[in-house]
Every structure is written in structure tokens, then in C-alpha cells.
């Protein structure tokens, strides 16, 4: 299994600003993902973080709003840009294991005021 850490664990931000969330994996992994989860709701996939190339975004998510970096096989960042209250959510990164199981970070709880 992989151990995932995320920073920050939570933040309160003003609308119009941006926040970058960091995700660190304790081992090299091929695939990493970013999700959004509203409290009490399911997980919605934002994008696949591709190492060495641009992220692949799901329908409804765009690079200008959620730029993602993946400089190596153990690290990724997600930026939430030009934030609005609707962006308040929990953001989770995950790393894919050997058999395509996913290991999740503890999440970043974002509140936009």
C-alpha cells in the first residue's frame, strides 16, 4: 500500500484568490488522481495527474480553474484558482496501487468566504 500526505489539511480563503494543494506519496506510482467531495456526498473525479504531460480533466473541470502539476512519480499539486464559495469542498488526491486499487490522502478541507 501507499501512504499519502496532503498539505494543507484545511484552509479558509477569500473569494478571488487561489490555493495550491500538495500531495506527496511515499513511493513511486504511475497514476494519481484528484477528487472533490462535498460533505456527506460521493467522490467526483476532477482529473488524472499525468507525469510529464498535461493532466486529463473530467467533464465539467478545466485546466484554467484547476491547474495540476505532476513533476515526478511521487508528487502532485492541484491549484484551485479564482475561488468562489461554490469551490468550498474537500479535495482528495489518490495514488493507484499495483492492482489499480486507490490510496487516498487525508484530504484538504477548503472553505471560501
Amino acid at each position, binding site marked *: *500500500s501507499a501512504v499519502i500526505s496532503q498539505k494543507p489539511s484545511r484552509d479558509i480563503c477569500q473569494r478571488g484568490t487561489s490555493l495550491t494543494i500538495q500531495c506527496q506519496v511515499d513511493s513511486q506510482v504511475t497514476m494519481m488522481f484528484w477528487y472533490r467531495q462535498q460533505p456527506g456526498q*460521493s467522490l467526483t473525479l476532477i482529473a488524472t495527474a499525468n507525469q510529464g504531460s498535461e493532466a486529463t480533466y473530467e467533464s465539467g473541470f478545466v485546466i484554467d480553474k484547476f491547474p495540476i502539476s505532476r513533476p515526478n512519480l511521487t508528487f502532485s499539486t492541484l491549484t484551485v484558482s479564482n475561488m468562489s464559495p461554490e469551490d468550498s469542498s474537500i479535495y482528495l488526491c489518490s495514488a493507484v496501487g499495483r492492482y489499480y486499487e486507490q490510496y*487516498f490522502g487525508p484530504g484538504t478541507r477548503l472553505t471560501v468566504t
Partner: protein
Amino acid sequence: GQQVMQIPQYQHVQEGEDFTTYCNSSTTLSNIQWYKQRPGGHPVFLIQLVKSGEVKKQKRLTFQFGEAKKNSSLHITATQTTDVGTYFCAGMGEAGGTSYGKLTFGQGTILTVHP
């Protein structure tokens, strides 16, 4: 696109009662995975089912994958207060498809256990 439906949304049981959550996919899956999320926590991988008709057990938990590889269930026998949390199924599309490697999560079943 692929959709995964999960029922029930909520389940309240007395400690010692059994619990079952069901998952149904709109498309055939290469595998289905189950995750548990404790209140305030993050999803934790429980198990993966790959074969048609597969049944796996983890202590009091029994997982099944349907013959058509489109539905699955999780059954907990004699629930305990430690079983509290949200149980998610997550389906992966067939190999070679555009969604392979990605998971589509069900809505989750929130389980509460009354002591």
C-alpha cells in the same frame, strides 16, 4: 458515461443486526472495489473483485460480484459500532476503454449502528 448506482443511501441498524449495500453499474466492469470512509476520514480501500460471480470474505464482511460483472454487494454480519461509516463501491471500466484505471464511485451508503 459510466454510472454506478448504490442503495440504500442510509441504513440505521441496531448493533448485532446485519447490513447490506448494493451497487449497480450501467456498463460491464473490469473490476469493482469497495471503500470505507469513517466520519471525518478519507476513503480506505477494502477489497477488489475481478471475476464474474466472485465472492470474497473479510471476517464479518462478504463481498460479491455479479455474474454479468455489473453489480455487487457488501454484506456485514452482526454489525458492531466500529462498522460505522460510509461504504462506497467504485467501478472500473473494461480494459482498453477510455475510463480504464479510473474509478466511478457510487453514492455511498451511510451506516449508523446503535449500541
